């Protein structure tokens, strides 16, 4: 099992859960697995073309998947997939 770290803005979709345990071999499968449990998750992360939205970065164990193999980046046992959106608040 791997873990998806869900940022606060997406927790509305996950019923408040900040971490989701999923079985997945790739980032795409991780997103699909999360979506199976929490419908709407995928469309929060991926755009209409199925690509990761440009104002969201997905990291596997702290490394941006765009520097790896994108959505095909392997996810292994105990890996953490973090979905990180831009945040603008400061006030």
């Amino acid at each position, binding site marked *: 099992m791997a873990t998806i770290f869900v940022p*606060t*803005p997406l927790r509305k979709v996950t019923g408040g859960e900040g971490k989701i345990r999923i079985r997945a071999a790739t980032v795409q499968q991780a997103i699909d697995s999360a979506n199976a449990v929490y419908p709407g998750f995928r469309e929060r992360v991926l755009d209409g073309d199925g690509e990761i939205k440009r104002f969201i970065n997905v990291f596997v164990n702290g*490394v941006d998947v765009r520097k790896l193999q994108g959505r095909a980046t392997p996810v292994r046992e105990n890996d953490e997939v973090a979905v990180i*959106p*831009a945040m603008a608040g*400061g*006030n």
Partner: protein
Amino acid sequence: MLGFTNDQIYRYSRHIILPDVGGAGQKKLLRAKVLLVGAGGLGSPSAMYLAAAGVGTLGIVEFDRVDLSNLQRQLLHRTQDVGRLKIDSAQDTLNALNPDVKVVKHQVVLDSTNIMEIIKDYDIVVNGTDNFPTRYLVNDACVFAGKPLVDGSIFMFEGQATVYDAAHGGPCYRCLFPTPPPPGEVPSCQEAGVLGVLPGIIGSIQAIETIKLILGKGDSLKGRLLLFDALAMEFREMRVEKDPHCPVCGEDPTITELIDYEQFCGVAFPEKPATAQDAEMVPA
């Protein structure tokens, strides 16, 4: 001793005895010029710790007035300051804390016509703004001016902090987030709420990073995005690298001049979005 007054030697004694600061480091702090964008949630702890540390010149960009609802987290301001300009309230608080600090007030709304003139006199910019258009403006201006940008942002129980320094091999904001979220997905910070202590953590981290940059000590957050989840009480670290294709700091930049947010986002940035529904995707 290095031109300190007796009071300064005593005031900064806990710095001066630190091997990585010392008298020479304290002098660097006293000579440093730091610009804080915003005197709100993040700007309050940053400004207060930088002032206490003896950073000699603190510029503050802020046009807003103190509102009662600010006081849950914005420690620069007090109940008696409600209705005053934040910049005046901030100056009073900082000078009461440390009269060594010269506070320079910039009571303006930052835009493409004034930002370069404002930031040119400062060594480091600390970002405590609360909206995407200003974040992109400040980032691009810092890239053009070659200034390090100590960045922080907060949302509900979660915060982010990093150091952007494109002039010295680091990434910039657009390396991570080349384009802003569509206007419909950009909420304002007032709607979702924020734990009052949270900006205290993130703003203090920004103050630490600023002091490290001034001293030239330690490993900065350049190239690392620090995430803080207060509910889980967890810190995470993501590696962020300079993007050679970055539209502003990359090898073949497509953005070569500043962009004002109305043009940038297509619509004027809403002060108060209609519903909390707007705030579900991307925090502001």
